[in-house]
């Protein structure tokens, strides 16, 4: 311990501190979030471009803003190893992807394959009544 300098001690202690926030990070996060929100809003409000393209663009803008806020507001990925916070966050994303993606995949297939059209349903019910 004889080689400890006052600077070394600061570094040693700071490595065990929760991530320190800086004003620069919050300003970057805030300004880019506003820009992303406004561009998404204007795109949707004026129905700019084709519908398919617009859905894609809005989704991309939301995902960019999600990453921006995760990094600049929630300080993900700025900790010292072991990066448990990052690992838990990525695992959450995986679980959400499976739940949301899986549900949509199954439900749209069900709608497509099983759900009869209204006309077919009426025909079926009439036939059941006649029996």
């Amino acid at each position, binding site marked *: 311990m004889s*080689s400890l300098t006052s600077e070394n001690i600061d570094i040693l202690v700071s490595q065990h*501190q929760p991530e320190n926030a800086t004003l620069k990070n919050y300003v970057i*996060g805030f300004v880019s979030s506003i820009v992303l929100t406004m561009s998404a809003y204007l795109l949707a409000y004026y*129905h700019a471009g084709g519908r398919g393209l617009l859905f894609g663009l809005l989704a991309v803008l939301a995902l960019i803003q999600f990453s921006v806020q995760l990094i600049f*507001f929630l300080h993900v990925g700025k900790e010292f190893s072991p990066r448990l916070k990052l690992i838990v966050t990525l695992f959450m994303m995986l679980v959400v992807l499976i739940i949301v993606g899986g549900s*949509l995949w199954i439900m749209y297939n069900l709608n497509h394959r099983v759900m009869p059209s209204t006309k077919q349903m009426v025909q079926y019910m009439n036939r059941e009544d006649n029996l």
Partner: protein
Amino acid sequence: MSDLVPSAQVDVKEVNRLIERNDEDNTTIFGFWVYLMTDCVLFGSLFAVFTVLRNNTFGGPGGAVLFSLPYALIETLSLLTSSFTCGLAVLSAQRKSKKQTVFWFVVTFLLGATFLGLELTEFHKFIAGGNSWHRSGFLSSYFALVGTHGLHITIGLIWIAVMTGFILKRGINGLTMKRIRMLSLFWHFLDVVWIFIFTIVYLFGALHA
């Protein structure tokens, strides 16, 4: 600044105590982060339900008729700004400035309360117009998703109020700092969830016209 400190002057015990305290705080904050991530899974399921049911309007009005985009934008901007001011509160707390921390938490509270007021006004407008959660699968899932978020905001507002009182009484020390960090994580997290509500519920809803 990197002059060698004679080993006799380095209080090794004090350094170790500081490190230990910080490690303990980090574990608590990490535990809170894990809770937030499980909350994300809850919201993920609600988003899945909403997306599946969004066209099941049962003859009632859809999102394109009900939602007003400018209104949703104002809600979004007030919540986003409150997220920023919450960050400023954390920065003030890091500088140990009690006055500024309290000031920014009050601003955050007011912006958050504005957001909640706007949201409840919108709910009231829908329900008064006969479009409550009874109306259709779409509206049930809408109220479940946005209502769950609003409930979190309500809890967040209570927490901010209690935290502000706590800071006024105890000042800023290790304990308050730890709690301020967890509160700020919670509040920023709610803004992150709102990005997706704004995009998927309101913006996509306008496109479904």
